[in-house]
């Protein structure tokens, strides 16, 4: 199996940040819906 190459440590941090940002965005959307739907 070919070993994956994640790139520099800066990039590795970016990958984690992408996933965290998405979690925040989805939570914000869920909150947005709850606040304005009634």
């Amino acid at each position, binding site marked *: *199996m*070919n070993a*994956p*190459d*994640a*790139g*520099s440590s800066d*990039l590795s941090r*970016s*990958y984690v940040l*992408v*996933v965290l*940002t*998405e979690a925040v*965005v*989805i939570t914000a*959307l*869920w909150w*947005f*819906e709850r*606040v*304005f*739907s*009634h």
Partner: protein
Amino acid sequence: MRALDWLVVFAYLVWIVHDGLKRSKATDEVEGYFLANRSLPWWAVGLSVMATQLSAITLVGTTGQAYADGMRFIQFYFGLPIAMVILSVTLVPFFYRARVFTAYEYLEQRFDLKTRTLASILFLCSRGLSCGVIVAAPAVILSIVLGWNLTITILAIGLPTVVYTMLGGVQAVTWTDVKQMGVIVGGLIAAVAVLIIGLPHEVGVFDALHIAGSVGRVNAIDFHFDWRQTYTFWSGLLGGLFLMLSYFGCDQSQVQRYLTAKSIDEGRHSLLMSAYFKIPLQMIVLLTGVFLFVFYLFNQPPLLFNTEHAKEVKESARATDYEALNAEFAQAFARRREAASAIAAATDDSARAAASDALRTSNAAIKDIRMRAATLVNEVTHDDKYKGTTGDTPAADVNYVFPTFIVSRMPIGLVGLMIAAIFAAAMSSIAAELNSLATATVIDVYRRLLKPQASDAHYLTVSKFATGAWGIVACIVASFAVGLGSLIEVVNRFGSIFYGSLLGVFILALTFRRATGTGAFVGLLAGIAVVLVFAFHPATRSVSYLWHNPLGVIVVLIVGGAVSLVSAPRAVESVR
């Protein structure tokens, strides 16, 4: 359109073509023409990736979708950020180190010629057709809304794009994409501003969102699991993940964008740009649709936005029936406006709840009148697209809501800017597709199979000719596609038939060391066959197409892996 708007559109076209042609000076060899000598900065590539994905029909259709059905569409992109991370770690470094022009070239290095050729031909067939649809869809809408001649509209979108893509190659595509993204975002911001300014003074932005929310327009997340629904959290996160992996990892129109970056890490950064900004950008597009809905609660919209058959209906025996519906619609609109105003004026929760109930009731009445109008048009014209619904709007209307607003409600000058933005969205997608179609044609077919020993200058000439030829094909397909409404849907679904299987072949290549060319080839055919049956079998055809992609991957991995184990293994050498 007034003279100033025409001037803005014309200035945009001249600017973009001129900018594209400027880039042709730096293009004197094939690697420069197709890959910009792998020299572009990550941010330009990232914007190009986003511009390619945001076609005119996405811009116009998504705002209409939010107008009719709320923001559920956003979930379609939930798999995208994770797909970008996975691709940055896996396929991006392999493509770079293999020094390939096309994604399919890598398949020959790893497997064999037949697998590469099949993958490339699947891409050429699918994208060749879809390129025509990308030209046709906005051309039809603009020609109906603005009363333009359809053929001239197709040529107005297609010809300038062909000219700068043909002469300037990928540099022209990328740098014009950057500017086109600016025009699109600028246009959207202007539209949102006009929509908000157009609300009554007593209705603020938060009031507008509360009003939209009371009729389901801010519904963004649906955690229910349903195979048949495309716009749910799970379909978007899981099914969408595989779609985005396929699109960004195996579709040459996207792969070629990041192959032009200066280095592996710059290529990765360009993909991560989409990971961060695609969902927010799509939010702006969807919020535009939500504010459109609120705007039309206070400003009377037409009974039907799509005026394609208006003349035919007015001259038919049912004209008086249609007029009666129009009068009924005006009264229902007044009641709905009153209910919407009551929500904004409500001072406590119980008053707001009562007003929300009234709005839902009056909105249902509006839906009923519109559906009767659509049925009437269907009975007069026998046009079946007037039969369906999207949310509470006739399906035939969805793509016409935003263009109608632009033409009838935006101020002079901004109409031109928005039409330019629709042109920009269409042209950026078409240019990337033409460029990638020409790359696959020349690199995977002409240079590999037909004329392997020619000079670089010869291939460069053929590449420009191929770009122009694909442009002509796109315009011809567009001319036919406009008369065959259902064909557009067929073409859109065509990609989903083989996308997942193609991804399966790349996963097989990267993860299964003993995988052979025969295994990959048979696996790819088996994957496509199974997905085809699945997509059209009565028992499974209601399953959302997003799930076709993981299905294709699984079939390729199982069949391709099994065939590889029983077929003679090819000596595995490093292609990294």
